[in-house]
């Protein structure tokens, strides 16, 4: 048996040597040229070949509402790119995955997209508990990931060169803190927040900011997302005489809080929630009960970054035709993340460089785009440099910007039950 194998190897070796001797110098030159051309062509995708992008969002489960919104924003951006001929002649193929609002599923889906589907970039994600595991896996694989909705500071402080996001904590805490200090001037503030990394960090930073200015925070409580009853916490706020209630909860938590606030007639001067209030759906469900409530948003069909009105209206029109509903601030986060990644890939292709993770990340870092949500530039850590949300108040069923003054579209109603402007 062994001898047969050795004999076979020897025959093969003789055959190869005979073949090599038979090649002329011209043949060798041709061979080297072909190799060079092939290696050059292999640096980017073949002409007309699709560029594969992956998107991981919570399309089912507790976070499905916002996950679907982000997904639609991403789809809108990809379809927009394909409608104008793709990226340097390459169509974009979006591979979408559902993480079921669970970090373990998010990790499995990320692995699938990176190792089996071999996508060149990742998009999407809602809440840091889902974005965090995806960013770690993407970094290990050397694939850029542009998160649509992530806030936790530590995610960008880990020195992950492949992680970028279009939102950041300071873009929420700073405008809200300034608004409270400059316009509301409360004596006592109650802060409720959820047991998620982003919400906890938001509450802690806001508490520090307000406490530095001498504002008392007698109620600072964490709750589980999906808590069915806030009546005890509202009773505490009532007994402490809190002027202001700030909720770090999500859309459903704020729906319940606002309803119970109204039912229990809690004598608060203002209710503000950065997430979940600035939505048409919130107004639709709470009806009159939503009047005077305040939230934050980065964009809305009627609230766009100055100078992007035409682009914003065109996006709203296209989106409504495609999905049969109006986009919102979460949708715009998904759209913005996708626009950033698509622009970076187009830059790499334009320079005829291989579509590698480091090249796309380098281009993401040098981007400077003006989009409906605002100017988009990333710092060295991957955080957006110009991300700032505005404070909105629900007035007569519409969202009105009440802060900052240069973007205000309406007068502030304060305190909460005021029938007329301040």
């Amino acid at each position, binding site marked *: 048996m062994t001898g047969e194998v050795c004999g076979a190897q020897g025959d093969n070796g003789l055959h190869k040597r005979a073949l090599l001797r038979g090649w002329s110098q011209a043949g060798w030159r041709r061979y080297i040229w072909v190799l060079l051309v092939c290696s050059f062509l292999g640096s980017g995708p073949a002409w007309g070949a699709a560029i594969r992008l992956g998107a991981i969002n919570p399309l*089912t*489960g*507790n976070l*499905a*509402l916002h*996950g*679907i919104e982000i997904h639609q924003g991403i789809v809108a951006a990809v379809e927009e790119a394909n409608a104008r001929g793709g990226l340097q002649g390459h169509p974009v193929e979006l591979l979408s995955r559902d993480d079921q*609002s669970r970090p373990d599923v998010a990790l499995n889906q990320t692995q699938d997209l990176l190792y089996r589907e071999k996508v060149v970039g990742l998009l999407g994600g809602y809440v840091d508990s889902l974005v965090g595991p995806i960013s770690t896996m993407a970094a290990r694989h050397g694939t850029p990931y542009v998160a649509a909705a992530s806030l936790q500071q530590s995610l960008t402080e880990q020195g992950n060169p492949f992680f970028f996001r279009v939102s950041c904590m300071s873009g929420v805490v700073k405008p809200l803190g300034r608004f409270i200090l400059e316009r509301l001037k409360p004596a006592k503030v109650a802060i409720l927040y959820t047991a998620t990394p982003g919400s906890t960090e938001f509450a802690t930073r806001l508490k520090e900011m307000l406490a530095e200015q001498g504002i008392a925070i007698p109620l600072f*409580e*964490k*709750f*589980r997302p*999906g*808590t*069915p*009853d806030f*009546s*005890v*916490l509202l*009773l*505490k706020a*009532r*007994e402490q005489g809190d002027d202001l209630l700030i909720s770090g909860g999500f*859309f*459903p938590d704020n*729906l*319940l809080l606002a*309803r119970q606030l*109204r*039912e*229990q*007639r809690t004598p608060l001067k203002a209710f503000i929630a950065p997430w979940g209030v600035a939505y048409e*759906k919130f107004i639709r*469900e*709470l*009806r009159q*009960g939503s009047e005077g409530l305040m939230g934050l948003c980065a964009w809305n069909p009627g609230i766009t970054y100055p100078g992007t009105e035409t682009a914003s209206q065109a996006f709203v029109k296209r989106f409504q035709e495609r999905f049969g509903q109006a986009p919102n601030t979460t949708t715009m986060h998904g759209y913005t993340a996708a626009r950033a990644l698509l622009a970076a890939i187009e830059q790499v292709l334009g320079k005829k460089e291989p579509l590698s993770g480091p090249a796309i990340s380098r281009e993401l870092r040098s981007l400077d785009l003006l989009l409906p949500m605002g100017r988009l530039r990333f710092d060295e850590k991957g955080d957006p440099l110009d991300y700032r949300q505005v404070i909105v108040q629900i007035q007569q069923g519409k969202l009105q910007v009440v802060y900052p003054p240069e973007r205000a579209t309406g007068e502030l109603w304060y305190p909460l039950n005021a029938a007329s402007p301040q």
Partner: protein
Amino acid sequence: MGFSLIFGVTHAFNLAHGELIVLAGYLAYALWHFWHIPFYWTLPVCILLLPVATLGLHWLLRRLPAPFELNSLVVTFGLAIMLQNLFLAFFSADFRLIMLPAAPVLDFPDLSIMVTANQALLVSLSLAATGLVHLFLHRTFLGKALRATIQNREGAALAGIRVGQMQLIAFGVGGTLIGLAGPLFASNMYLYPAGGMEATLIAIIITITAGVGRTRSLLLGGWLLGLAESLAVLLIGTSWRELISAGILLAILLWRPEGISSRKTGIT
């Protein structure tokens, strides 16, 4: 109570219980929101229609081969996922609320006591439903036959009770209770496609706490857990809420594994 009754009589571990409550909630929401039917009129509609769904589930489960308990678990889990996806298709992933008038019915500001109309409706209807089911189980021949089936199916069959019919009745009564619970759930919480899971979990916990088929204990167990959670939030903070519930559940399992008000001699 619907979960406990169905489980007690049929031994079907209905993991789609919460989804059926959400189904009733969505039905009430659709009637209230799209057809502008007053909320109170949605209650009888759901009470009449949900037994149709639970009887359909009974028809499905009757066809299962042995082992019944395990197979019912798998089938109802599949049904729960199917219902969630149907909710997603018909109502999208949006969170839905039924908004009732916010007038308080009792308000003593000095004592920090306030009962809202919504809370009053919830408490009175849950008390009325528990009372009626208790009377049905303890004062009627049919109810006694149901209790006998819960205690010992073979013994009940030997005594001439048609166990198959008892199962049908248990699913019917369970469906009626789910039909009542759904709209109340929608008017106190919010509806969304995956919202049934937590309701199923609560039903399982209350059944373990109270014991199977014990109406008074179910009410007592539910209120005990609710009060303990609220007191924990008021006195020591929200972080303790789940820990307190889990502690009570563990204590009952150790102290009274047959249920909170069980007697060694048999059913209450």
